[in-house]
């Protein structure tokens, strides 16, 4: 099929097997819109943060399957692609007030962690280039800090779970690991605690009410004279 706009360089892509010519400087997402797809699923933040546009492709005549975000990847000639807009993933239900930061908590909620084959397929699948297998292994050992650190940039796109031969859902395990780490193992801020108490005691109420009643001219003066540090 011929692209309509011949003024720019085009490449051929195959959306679920169907060939289209598209401008070569578009992302996969914009290319699909260009050829007429109107997304309901498969498009979210369009900026690489939400994981809604997980996409799998193979370049013609290559054996390797690649996993990317459609909003963050430029089209290439010979790209055979499909989106994976939903992952049927297992998520444990828990009460954060009752989970314990102990070594085998993650295994209790997600016993399948023990099935990890250390094949590293999850790591290869990650469009964020995270060390997924290493954080799954950290979770298996009950090392919350390491699991939290390695998984922090995860956007829960689901691709690791779709590829895992042991049917583990790495990103949901990581979510629980980070929440336990953040809630129970990181020290709490004393400063936040102090200011919450001060506010409850009414410390700033009067001052703020006064500002609320000040004339515009006085407010502008007060604003212009405030110390900037």
């Amino acid at each position, binding site marked *: 099929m011929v692209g309509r706009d011949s003024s720019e360089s085009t490449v051929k892509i195959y959306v679920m097997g169907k060939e289209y010519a598209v401008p070569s400087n578009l992302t996969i997402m914009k290319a699909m819109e260009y050829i007429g797809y109107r997304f309901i699923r498969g498009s*979210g933040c369009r900026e690489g943060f939400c994981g809604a546009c997980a996409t799998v492709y193979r370049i013609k005549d290559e054996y390797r399957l690649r996993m990317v975000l459609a909003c963050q990847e430029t089209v290439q000639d010979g790209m055979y692609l499909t989106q994976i807009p939903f992952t049927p993933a297992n998520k444990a239900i828990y009460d954060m007030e009752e989970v314990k930061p102990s070594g085998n908590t993650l295994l209790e909620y997600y016993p399948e962690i023990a099935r990890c084959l250390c094949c590293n397929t999850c790591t290869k699948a990650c469009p964020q280039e995270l060390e997924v297998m290493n954080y799954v292994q950290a979770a298996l050992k009950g090392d919350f800090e390491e699991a939290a650190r390695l998984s922090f*940039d995860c956007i829960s796109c689901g691709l690791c779970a779709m590829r895992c031969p042991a049917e583990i859902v790495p990103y949901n395990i990581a979510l629980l690991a980070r929440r336990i780490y953040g809630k129970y193992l990181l020290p709490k801020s004393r*400063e936040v605690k102090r200011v919450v108490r001060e506010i409850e005691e009414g410390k700033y109420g009067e001052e703020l009410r006064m*500002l609320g009643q000040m004339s515009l001219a006085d407010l502008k003066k007060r604003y212009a004279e405030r110390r900037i540090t």
Partner: protein
Amino acid sequence: MMLTRGYPDYMLESIDLVEATRDRRLKESFGSMQLEEREEILRKYHPDYNARGRRPVRLGPNKGDVFPHEVVDILEAHPLVDPSSIDLTHLDFDLDILIIGGGGAGMTAALWAFYSGVKPENLLIVQKLRLGDSNSIMSQGGIQVADKPYDSPTIHYLDALGGGHFTNNPELLRTLVLDAPRILRWHEGLGVEYDREASGDMITLPCGGASRNRIHSAKDYTGMEIVRNIKDEVINKGVTVIEFTSAVELMMDDADRVAGAVLYNMETGQYYVARAKATILATGGFGRLHIQGFQTTNHYGATGDGIALAYRVGARLRDMDSVQYHPTGAAYPEQIVGLLVTEKVRNLGAQPVNKLGEQFVNPLEPRDVEASAIIRECYEREKGIETPTGMRGVWLDTPMLELIHGEGTIEKNLPAMFRQNRRFGIDMRRSPILVFPTLHFQNGGVEMINANAETTVKGLFAAGEVTGGTHGKNRLMGNSILDYSVYGRRAGISAAQYAKEVKVSRVTLRHVKRYEALLKEAHVETTRSSPILLPEYRGEGVLSHSLDIF
């Protein structure tokens, strides 16, 4: 086109000039503008002041007010569905609280309604995309909270008031700054990993328009880190959620109170009648309306639906004339044009510089002022850099960060930005990045009339970006996460209280017929309908040759 380090040759020549002045600029600070200077630059260069971009709305509670064309277009539009085609006698849901929108505000409201005693099965979040897909998840930079000994809620209040050109609602702003530390404590208890010192106290950064270091962040994934925690809680608590479903019309009862909405399953075409004692509007902003043709940082569903829905039940809007253009959207390469370059990059010390490598504005002016200065540099002083696709921008000198804070700073503190640029062959540790203002935030919205998150219409609560009042005519960085948290919480609590007291009667769509009559009376002749639900990005070649058969 040959690219080196991700850039064509002529852009590299300009980068050479940026590098040549870097050592000198590291020691220089560009002065801040006085209030009068700010007003002048806004008047001359800010898109809000472009008379061609706006017109008065001809009907409803804000009749005569001047809004951007794109906003007036969705107000002066017909309903999506004919009320007589909806069977209101069959209730698909009969709820305590209906929450429209599943971003930060909606999910926070659901949790606080739950904490206030509403059963999860009597709560419904209806969400147009997936739960959590929202501008909330994309906010990178952080949240403002005055928790340091050198800071106070009072100073936070003054900063936000000046930043908002003294147009903020004092009660709403006072509540915002006073509730802020409590929100941070709640987040700590959920497990949100803010950047901290070893002691547990939080690391804070400066931001545009703030007089103290007050930004709390979680690398440059702050929004994502908060949203995934509260989303997990919403699921754990068993709140009912329907995804890929929109509210297409609010419903009212015989006493003219809002009492739920007609919902539309976007995948199957089925509608549902959801009656509710209280309704919380948490639909977010309008970036995808592309005001004045600007690119946007907003998520795919940010089409201003809440404004249209609320206006038809008679809710008043405020400050809808005011649009926030984030000073630094990506201007190059083409694939990422318009996407957000977080303000945190400037907070950490990167300067905007022109094609000659000169500074032209203090990096930390309030957003509207900073954006105006960049527009002036590109279009008045002609000192911007034009990209191969004809877009203009200025450099944001990111390699400065590694010089100021040490090697590895960018990968550690700005992993999302680093990753995004690297995907397109640009190493922001070595080369500056090109930026231009991008449509970012809806400053105004459905008027919130008090700190209980109420609107001018009974039964309708609102929270987050869809609302107007808290920020006046310009929001400072870090006050939007705070806004949806503070008022999401308050909307949830107030709606739960209200739902205990109210008894809704028969639901109707009479107001929709009334609105049609108003359109006619105002001589609005149009085929437009609203809410528009999703933007239209299909290619011209397809749209001009499409058939509506199947």
